[in-house]
């Protein structure tokens, strides 16, 4: 699904965010991306969503080199990637329904189809019946779930999450992870960036670890990483 080959990213200030990173997230796989803050997790996600472009190396999605995706086609690429952010990036003056419907409106779905899909997405994240609420009326965990609903509402083949549990207590965090597992079970590839090692230690998924811009050891499980 996602393949990084010898990818480096140097910001214009000279700051080296990623150095010679190699990794491969397989089709339908769920994996974690860990490392201390500043290790390059966010940069790696930005390279996938073409918010930033790699300085060197090759980033491919589904076998397509995204260096070949021109600025005009970036929006279409992003429609196939569901993105979830730590600060959830919701529009505070729009209702929950409008927030979740945004990707569908952009893609040009009919109104009836939008209602159906938004209802389905809300149901999946356990917020059914809160369409008319404004995000400000919801708790932190609920807001995060609205962000997740928006990311999955157009059924993207790939889901990226940047610290999705950063502001949540352990119980809510586990709920969110279960949600990702459910999407993964239905065939979506999932990559979750988090520094919450305690959370992922108990899970069976592959873990990619970044340290100062380099990928450590390749494919090590979180449990192993924890024992060191």
């Amino acid at each position, binding site marked *: 699904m996602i393949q990084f080959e010898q990818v480096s990213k140097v910001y214009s200030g000279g700051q080296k965010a990623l150095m010679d990173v190699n990794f491969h997230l397989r089709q339908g796989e769920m994996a974690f991306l860990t490392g201390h803050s500043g290790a390059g997790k966010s940069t790696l996600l930005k390279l996938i969503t073409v918010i930033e472009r790699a300085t060197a190396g090759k980033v491919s999605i589904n076998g397509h080199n*995204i260096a070949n995706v021109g600025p005009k*086609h970036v929006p279409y690429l*992003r*429609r196939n990637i569901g993105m979830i952010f730590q600060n959830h*990036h919701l529009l505070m003056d729009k209702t929950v329904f409008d927030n979740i419907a945004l990707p569908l409106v952009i*893609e*040009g779905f009919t109104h009836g189809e939008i209602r159906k899909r938004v209802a389905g997405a809300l149901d999946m994240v356990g917020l059914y019946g809160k369409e008319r609420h404004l995000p400000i009326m919801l708790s932190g965990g609920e807001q995060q779930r609205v962000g997740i609903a928006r990311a999955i509402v*157009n059924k993207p083949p790939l889901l990226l999450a940047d610290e999705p549990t950063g502001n949540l207590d352990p119980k809510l965090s586990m709920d969110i992870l279960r949600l990702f597992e459910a999407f993964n079970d239905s065939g979506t590839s999932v990559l979750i960036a988090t520094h919450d090692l305690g959370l992922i230690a108990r899970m069976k998924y592959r873990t990619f670890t970044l340290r100062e811009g380099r990928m450590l050891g390749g494919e090590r499980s979180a449990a192993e990483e924890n024992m060191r």
Partner: protein
Amino acid sequence: MSKKPSITQSKLPLSGRIVMFFIRHVQQGMSSMGELWRNPVSSIMTMAVLGVSLSLPAALQVLVKNAENITQSWNSAAEISLFINKGRSEQSIQSLLSRIKAFREVESVTYISREQALEEFQRLSGFGEALSYLDENPLPAVVTVTPSLKYSSPTGARELLVKLERESEVDFGRLDIEWLERLQALLKLLEKTVLAIAALLVLAVVLVIGNTIRLAIMNRRTEIEVMKLVGATEAFIQRPFLYTGIWYGVIGGILAWLIINVLVWYLDGALAELLGLYGSELTIQALTFSELIKLVLLASFLGWLGSYLSVRQHLRSIEPS
């Protein structure tokens, strides 16, 4: 190996996308109208500025139009006076008259004989007594020629005058159109001034709309970032702003039209009085319906242009980070 689906293709069929394209246009157009209602104070201020800015060039257009109307009625009043050589017989004058009448440049001819001229002079000048001391009538016979419409312009009338002066019976001719030429030069100056002022005001309209749209973009910065993150194209993001610009233009244009009508209604009485003094019965003409349509179309184009320039410049700079 099966072909991998393109990562940039849409999930919707082409026909559905085309239909939805138009539906989105209508929706975004309407919602940007609604957006204006949501901030009524700033919207009304902007529209008022546009209305006033547009009303000035429109008022000048009304001025030029009416001035042209008036001078056109004066244009045809150009007359050529031909003074006949003394000592020409009545017969030769009559033959001259019939020859001139045959010119296709000539609309009509009036003959004033020496006797008639003397009579008129005595009656109007107040020197009648003095004239009676003279042995002979000092006044020449005069032929007044009105050029046909095609030759009533200053240059046309001048051409005709040269032609008429070639006749042997004619001593000299006089064309009293200098004032007309000056008036026309003045009108030309007025028209150019109007154009220059109009161009400046049009520029002001574009700048005002551009700045208003810039503020709207800045206000919705986070929304634009999120839209870009979830895959909105530039066209999709900029469309509501372009519609907002067009709405500003449309409403500003209608406001300008209202202002002009009030202005004309206010000036009509005074102007009718002034024109009455000049013996003219022209009434001032406001903007016609087709001119209203043109004004609104122009204004909406300016609105679109202002917001397009603003959107081009500012939308690109907003990128998710």
